[in-house]
């Protein structure tokens, strides 16, 4: 009994791992960058790893560096984090169905639902014969581990590494481009995909790089809701 359980988990890990390889590349590089940056601001390995392991919110962690070096204002930190992370609201809405009935693991899946995990888990079909619960669990766990481990490496190795990593983080952009293309393979997704691309580009043009996410989210929802008849089949 215990043996088949372990076999099931191993099987799910084997199915999940290849999907996360681009995240492995991107998160190790970005996590290391984060660790190094924290180091230069006077925050050692413990602080950097604590932040990555507990807050686990990529881009916000970079923003948070400025908060840690400014005057103490936890309320402002909370609202800034809420705004920078607002896009997660839409990830949750998208994963309500897929993360149904997964018991206690569900809390972990929600806690670690970042851009990359959402992209993979919302696009990937659970392969036949693979335990759905552990498939999602390992996608989340691996992505989480890469980020925390990358942070650890960056904090410990710091500037020792002379290997030029410039451009490696493009793996994440490439991941999103490919998963976008995967979504566009299905005809019923095409209009929504184009709507997302166009709304985000419009928000970028009007509001600029620093403030594009929330206007883009509003534009996307308005577009998707007003086009419901067209998109719904």
């Amino acid at each position, binding site marked *: 009994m215990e043996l088949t359980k372990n076999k099931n988990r191993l099987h799910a890990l084997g199915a999940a791992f290849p999907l996360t390889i681009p995240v492995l590349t991107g998160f190790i590089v970005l996590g290391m960058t984060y660790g190094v940056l924290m180091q230069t601001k006077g925050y050692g390995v413990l602080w950097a790893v604590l932040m990555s392991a507990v807050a686990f919110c990529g881009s916000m962690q970079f923003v948070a560096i400025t908060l840690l070096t400014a005057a103490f204002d936890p309320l402002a930190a909370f609202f800034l*984090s*809420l705004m920078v992370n607002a896009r997660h609201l839409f990830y949750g809405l998208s994963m309500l169905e897929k993360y149904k009935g997964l018991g206690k693991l569900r809390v972990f899946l929600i806690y670690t639902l970042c851009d990359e995990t959402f992209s993979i888990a919302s696009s990937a079909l659970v392969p036949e014969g693979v335990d759905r619960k552990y498939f999602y669990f390992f996608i989340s766990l691996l992505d989480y581990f890469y980020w925390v481990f990358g942070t650890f490496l960056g904090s410990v190795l710091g500037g020792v590494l002379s290997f030029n990593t410039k451009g490696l983080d493009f793996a994440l952009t490439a*991941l999103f481009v490919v998963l976008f293309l995967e979504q566009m393979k299905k005809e019923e997704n095409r209009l929504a995909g184009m709507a997302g691309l166009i709304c985000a580009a419009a928000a970028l043009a009007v509001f600029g790089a620093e403030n594009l996410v929330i206007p883009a989210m509003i534009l996307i929802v308005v577009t998707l809701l007003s086009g419901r008849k067209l998109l719904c089949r």
Partner: protein
Amino acid sequence: MPLSITQTLITIAAITLGAMASRFTPFLLFPESKKPPKVISYLGQVLPPAMMGLLVVYCLKNVSIRNSPHGIPELIAIVLIVVLHQWKSNVLLSIGGGTIAYILLVQFIFV
């Protein structure tokens, strides 16, 4: 460290709370036991492709068209990804090929 240890811990907690509010709210508003309203199920279906479009733009937001190299490495890499993906439809090959091309472009050609 300009903040005290307690202040730093509270700041980390505040950031975590903000991030987790954004992640947990949908699941708390629409618990498993209840069927979500139709409009939410609809959004759940159409949001993934739309958000993938947003994430692509989000990743490219700091690329400057005006300043050198004018977004050319990104453009070449993305075109390559699209071509590779049309051709072989292999996720890892497309991502790997695009990333390696991009690295070569920014490290050796558009330095």
